[in-house]
């Protein structure tokens, strides 16, 4: 019996249109990144990565200090920090704020953190309308889907599918030209910006020494979300901090390039506090909700806390041959790809989706492109050993443990190892592959062998190296 995740993965693999959409989009992002990181374009790329890693390491190890500093700075600029231990507390805060201000409509800019806590759906239960204003997010909100990718939420959809979604949900004519589709979205969203009472954003960075929220985007919708409505609420994970504004010189060089190959995104906004007396733009009220939602638990683990260094550039997804095959919706949480594979088990528990850390060939392409040098393959290996331990009483795992125990015993007894090798060789048949094995279909049905043969042939069996070496040595001596 195949598990649900296996069935879904097979479905994605069998969908030729989906496969080519994923491959084309991620391939484009890979190409753009490669050009942006070329030695003549960014000669100090490796030094920047090292710096980024060290700054994140320092910040995460001193997070309590920087969080307090940030809170003081936000207050000093006339804003307010709200602490939330989980999504429920974020929803509670926003619900009460909306009630108090008589707010009905919330515009949002793209934020994985709010996706993480299902903010839109939960606010909907409180009769608050939330509208995503990033084009990709808007498309998937209309379609009722989860983001397919950390930076490109509608990466899996072709313009024809987008046209259909717009026709179905907005009642517009079927237009398939990207410019026309954008125009339709823009016209609809403009009305929402003007009518919205609250703008909710995420944060790419929080700057401790100035209390600033930094937003990076290409469409200008985040800037609209933070200036048009009267109230701006930024929802951010506590790991988003950097100590000083000057640290952004490192991160902003890396983020756009890693994500889309852009030296800098079209808009980079530094927002600290509400509009002050003489200023023209900006909200009347400014809140930063700092979300834990399991982050302090990750922080407590010395080896794995580097997972919190992530700046959500999505490069590891684009370069992951597994993500490129199975796609973003086959990961159990909103965070997909290699980064999703290491943070989901830590946030949701090891046994929630125990298969996830094993769904990797450990090729290391993710770690190679990670701008903050998270050692993803090593963390996958750690998580694998933790899953095995957590599931030691589960029957399938018991059997697997028994197999590895037997294997380890054989590997410590070279003579028995050799005898078993001979036996396996006899089963497979020497040279021609026509041993007992091919005449005993029941043996071919043994799990791992069947799995191997479902995709590929086996190499022809023959004598082992050690046998041939003895023959050779005897010949040399005589």
């Amino acid at each position: 019996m195949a598990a649900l995740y296996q069935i879904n993965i097979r479905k994605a693999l069998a969908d030729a249109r989906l496969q080519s959409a994923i491959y084309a989009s991620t391939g484009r992002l890979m190409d753009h990144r490669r050009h942006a990181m070329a030695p003549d374009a960014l000669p100090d790329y490796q030094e920047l990565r090292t710096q980024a890693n060290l700054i994140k390491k320092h910040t995460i190890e001193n997070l309590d200090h920087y969080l307090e500093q940030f809170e003081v700075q936000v207050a000093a600029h006339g804003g307010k920090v709200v602490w939330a231990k989980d999504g429920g507390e974020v929803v509670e805060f926003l619900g009460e704020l909306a009630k108090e201000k008589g707010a009905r409509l919330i515009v949002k800019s793209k934020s994985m953190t709010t996706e993480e806590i299902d903010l839109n759906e939960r606010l909907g239960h409180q009769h608050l309308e939330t509208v995503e204003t990033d084009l990709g997010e808007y498309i998937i909100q209309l379609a009722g889907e989860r983001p397919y990718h950390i930076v490109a939420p509608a990466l899996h959809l072709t313009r024809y599918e987008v046209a259909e979604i717009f026709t179905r949900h907005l009642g517009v004519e079927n237009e398939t030209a990207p410019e026309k589709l954008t125009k339709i979205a823009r016209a609809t969203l403009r009305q929402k910006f003007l009518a919205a009472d609250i703008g909710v954003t995420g944060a790419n960075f929080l700057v401790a020494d100035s209390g600033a929220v930094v937003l990076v985007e290409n469409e200008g919708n985040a800037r609209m979300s933070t200036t048009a409505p009267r109230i701006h609420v930024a929802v951010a994970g506590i790991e988003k901090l950097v100590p000083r504004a000057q640290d952004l010189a490192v991160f902003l060089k890396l983020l756009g390039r890693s994500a889309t190959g852009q030296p800098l995104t079209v808009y980079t906004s530094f927002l600290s506090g509400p509009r002050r007396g003489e200023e023209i733009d900006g909200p009347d009220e400014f809140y930063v909700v700092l979300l834990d939602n399991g982050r302090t638990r990750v922080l407590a683990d010395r080896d794995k806390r580097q997972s919190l260094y992530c700046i959500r550039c999505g490069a590891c997804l684009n370069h992951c041959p597994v993500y490129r095959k199975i796609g973003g919706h086959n990961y159990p949480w909103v965070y997909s790809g290699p980064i999703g594979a290491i943070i989901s088990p830590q946030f949701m528990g090891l046994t929630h989706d125990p298969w996830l850390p094993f769904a990797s060939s450990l090729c290391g392409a993710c770690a190679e492109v990670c701008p903050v040098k998270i050692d993803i393959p090593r963390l996958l290996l750690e998580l694998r050993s933790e899953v095995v331990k957590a599931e030691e009483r589960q029957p399938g795992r018991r059997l697997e443990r028994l197999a590895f125990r037997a294997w380890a015993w054989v590997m410590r007894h070279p003579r028995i190892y050799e005898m078993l090798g001979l036996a396996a060789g006899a089963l497979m048949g020497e040279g021609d592959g026509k041993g007992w094995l091919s005449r005993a279909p029941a043996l071919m049905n043994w799990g791992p062998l069947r799995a191997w043969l479902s995709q590929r042939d086996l190499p022809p069996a023959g004598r082992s190296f050690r046998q041939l070496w003895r023959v050779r040595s005897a010949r040399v001596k005589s």
Partner: protein
Amino acid sequence: MAGRVSLFVTCIVDQLFPRVGLAMAEVLERVGWEVDFPEAQTCCGQPAFNSGYRDEARQVARHFLRVFRDAEYVVVPSGSCTAMITHHYEDLFRKEPEWLEEARRLAPRVWEFSRFLLEVARLEDVGARFDAVVTYHDSCHALRELNIREGPRRLLAKVRGLEVREMGKTEECCGFGGTFSVKFPEVSGGMARTKIESIVETGADYVVSIDSSCLMQIQGVLARAGLPVGTMHLAEVLARQ
């Protein structure tokens, strides 16, 4: 004699690709090294380590360390197994200081085959001749854990009669990944099929790598697709005369 090397042929070469081990011995002897094969060797422990069974991996790794303790040089026809010994034994034995010390003492003497030729034997030309067109597959662990990229290409460039054609996706994983290949067979197979498209495009007769496990995967998918491209370990190419 330049010195003495001990072969660690790896379990996969021992059982499935013995000609790779023989070719490696032949090349090393040809360039003046004395070669021995410690018969007590089996495996480095990677299959258990990568599957999350660290106790079992440790038992096998200790056996490995005992067998090769006194070797002058250990030469390995695999980037992946070399990286297991030189990189991952650190993690494996982090709570066993005595074995960690053993692992650290041995690590500088453990060499992936192509790197040994270039950096210890200091040779690019081993006197090989092979009239064929080949393409080189960068195996992931050699590339990203050992940073082996140009070395094997330099050795191939000196082979008389050989034409090397780069494939587009040379740095993309073949999809093997040890137990991943049987835990997620469709994903693994899909990755391999993407890889072989890139191999076939070059029109090469053979795809060459320094890891037999990748080649087992690539060969298996090529054979299943009925494609007339062979697989060869670098040692086999260098052994040709």
